[in-house]
């Protein structure tokens, strides 16, 4: 338990004022691994979320506009039992796993210096969501694959730390899908992630 206060102190002492580097021209490239949890608005259960973000801080809007591309992976699952009088052998138990690989392109507005060492940001953009829905039922496995275009909204806050920033962010994904097993639904949802954003 003594590690946490030490880490917190270290973070605060390493935090830099935003003005020190926000105007530098050499740190326009962003690279950020992130991890978190994703919860779909459907019955899919909460699942770990992993992503890698690559971005570019544009000269526009006094270097507050960034364009970022993110590749992410999460694999939520659900299971249940279905009853149908036309299935005479009894109830059908199933497990559905939806592996989603997303390629997201976002425009981010960074409120540099708005909260001291913290930089809030918000953005939005389209996403290409690649779904692989694997269903196991009655001893058989069915795999459906489909790519769909959706969009996402995101917001977060970054604490400057060393040559980058520690951040916490949240997304909302709208990703309509229409597979036999899933039905026609928005399989997107909410996620929360933490990560470290390097400035190169």
């Amino acid at each position: 338990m003594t590690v946490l206060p030490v880490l917190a102190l270290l973070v605060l002492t390493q935090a830099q004022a935003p003005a020190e580097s926000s105007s530098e021209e050499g740190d326009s490239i962003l690279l950020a691994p992130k991890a978190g949890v994703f919860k779909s608005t459907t019955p899919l259960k909460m699942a770990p979320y992993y992503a890698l973000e690559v971005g570019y801080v544009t000269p526009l809007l006094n270097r507050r506009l960034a364009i970022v591309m993110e590749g992410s992976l999460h694999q939520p699952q659900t299971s249940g039992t279905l009853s149908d009088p036309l299935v005479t052998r009894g109830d059908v138990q199933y497990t559905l796993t939806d592996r989603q690989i997303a390629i997201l392109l976002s425009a981010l507005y960074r409120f540099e210096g708005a909260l001291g060492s913290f930089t809030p940001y918000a953005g939005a953009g389209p996403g290409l969501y690649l779904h692989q829905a694997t269903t196991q039922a009655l001893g058989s496995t069915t795999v459906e694959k489909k790519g769909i275009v959706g969009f996402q909204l995101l917001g977060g806050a970054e604490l400057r730390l060393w040559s980058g920033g520690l951040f916490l962010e949240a997304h909302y994904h709208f990703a309509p899908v229409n597979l036999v097993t899933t039905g026609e639904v928005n399989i997107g949802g909410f996620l929360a992630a933490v990560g470290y954003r390097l400035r190169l």
Partner: protein
Amino acid sequence: MRPYLIASLLIAAACSPSTEGPTPKVVGTVNPRQPFINPARVCNTQGDERGWRINLIGERFTPVPQDVLTGDPGVGLPEVTLKGPATLTLDRDRVLYRDAEQMSLDIPTRDTTPPADLPAGSYAVEVRNLGGGTGELADILLIVPPPTVTRVTAPQGFNFSDISPLVVEGVDFRTDTFPVMKLQRAGAEEVEVFTLTVDSPTRVSTELPPGTPEGTYDFMLTNPEGCSFTLRNALTISYP
């Protein structure tokens, strides 16, 4: 332009849907009324309100959970289509899943609700797993018409102490099987008459058992697959 074209092609390829699952194999059909007759015969009229039930034999019949992320989940049963002189995809509620190797099919007729007009002839049966492939086998179902009796006669008259030959005339008699025939009269026991020969699709030869009581009878002819026809007041028996 080339990078945009490549990106477009990659996105199109990524978005194209695909499904991988068990591919069914169709082996045959069985009409429980004639379990040893292959292919199964099914009459295109009568039946109860669900039609005639037959069994479909095969492999890898695979229902899939359907719409499980919506508020109305269900089971996606294999889709069955009859292909012959006409093509008919059976309504979902006419397919009963027993296991991966057997399903029961309620074949609709002109008298079911809703009706279906399946012309007589040989049919293929196609099974499509909603989450997989499609299997089909030709000529495994024979749709047959119902028999119609137009006249029953006793060319040599009636003999109380001996058999009396009868000739049954009509249309769509089946020459590959023997129908069941009965004389019926209110207040009297049924009299079963045995088929001697099905001479042609329009003529059956049979005989009246000795000792059959006098009177006017209805004549009922029933084919083994289930369809029957009753000719009212078909035969008046009187002995000299």
